[in-house]
């Protein structure tokens, strides 16, 4: 992260947090392009409406061809528990294949999970269908469903984050 942008970034994030709170949103993600290969990704979210606003990591992507002087910092990408990309979240369960997601065994059945559900290792979280093969995606470990990142009937790509389990 380059210092010259730091203050502006903080102000920007604060402004986003205000937008989030004033509009009673739970999550907001913005990408700003500063120039070629230089951008800022910010995601701010609130766990509950009453909870304090948590600012997600801020990360300037540093161009590979950047001058060496600018290089030492990229390791400063903050390592905390709210990575900007849900797929990188340690609790993310990702799709093992390309297909279509179903949240319940069949239409009309209850959904396998909802936010707040507790699951045991091996419990079915959802189904990904491809080639008329219904793949039950198991919970890789016991935990609580924190977020569901896909909608019933939506297409998913390989590696796409499906659920955050903590």
């Amino acid at each position: 992260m380059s210092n010259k942008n730091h203050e502006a970034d903080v102000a920007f994030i604060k402004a986003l947090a205000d937008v989030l709170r004033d509009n009673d949103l739970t999550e907001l993600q913005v990408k700003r392009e500063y120039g070629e290969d230089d951008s800022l990704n910010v995601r701010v979210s609130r766990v509950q409406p009453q909870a304090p606003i948590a600012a997600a990591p801020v990360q300037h992507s540093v161009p590979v061809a950047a001058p060496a002087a600018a290089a030492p910092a990229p390791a400063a990408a903050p390592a905390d528990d709210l990575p900007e990309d849900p797929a990188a979240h340690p609790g993310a369960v990702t799709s093992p294949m390309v297909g279509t997601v179903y949240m319940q065994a069949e239409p009309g059945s209850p959904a396998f999970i909802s936010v707040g559900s507790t699951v045991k290792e091996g419990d079915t979280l959802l189904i990904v269908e491809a080639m008329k093969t219904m793949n039950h995606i198991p919970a890789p470990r016991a935990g609580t469903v924190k977020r569901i990142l896909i909608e019933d009937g939506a297409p998913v790509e390989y590696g796409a984050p499906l659920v955050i389990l903590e």
Partner: protein
Amino acid sequence: MAWPEGYGRRVLAEVDSTSAEGARIARSLSGPEWILGLKQTAARGRRGRPWVNPAGNFAASLVLRPTEAPEVVALRSFVASLALYDALEAVVGDASGLALKWPNDVLLHGGKLAGILLESAAGHLIIGVGVNLIAAPQAAQVEAGAVPPVSLLAETGKRVLPEALLDALAEAYAVREAAFVTYGFAPIREAWLARAARVGEEIIARTGSNAYRGTFETVDEQGNLVLKTSEARRAISAADVFF
């Protein structure tokens, strides 16, 4: 005909669904197993659609414990439908009028003769196969626009017993499975495409959220339906296909 070595065979007089039974017994099996239900009381199609299954029709499931990645396991949709085509050809005596519809329906004289539904969970794969040997539902009982159901008896005048088809299918499947495991998807894909309906023609693929009309170009190396629409060339992994 010889029952394939290494495959179990069980025939149940009555069962809720052979695939449900397969899921229940999967852990206790030491190898692949075919389960034939002479009568199914809770047969199911894709996404919970009812599958009418009077006695005399064929309902069987194969339980496997594949170790490949999920997208490779799913290619058994093609292995199974190709084997079913082979088996029907063997029991009927010729292949005239038979065709495959993406990803795994078997058609006879343009009507839906058989459906296959695969379910993968907890390390096992269950391939459920239903064939209208003696009776098919009325066209009004299936979704509007769907391929009309047909029965083998009505179309060919031949009465094939479920156990006879099981034997033919188990043998044909074992041959195709061995090819798949040894050589990969390529020979299965080639044989499947050679028997496919409507290649090069216009079809409609309805996915969970959209419907696409276009030319059915081919099935790609990942098993996707490749559809050339007016805007783009799309590879579709899950859809209902309408002609």
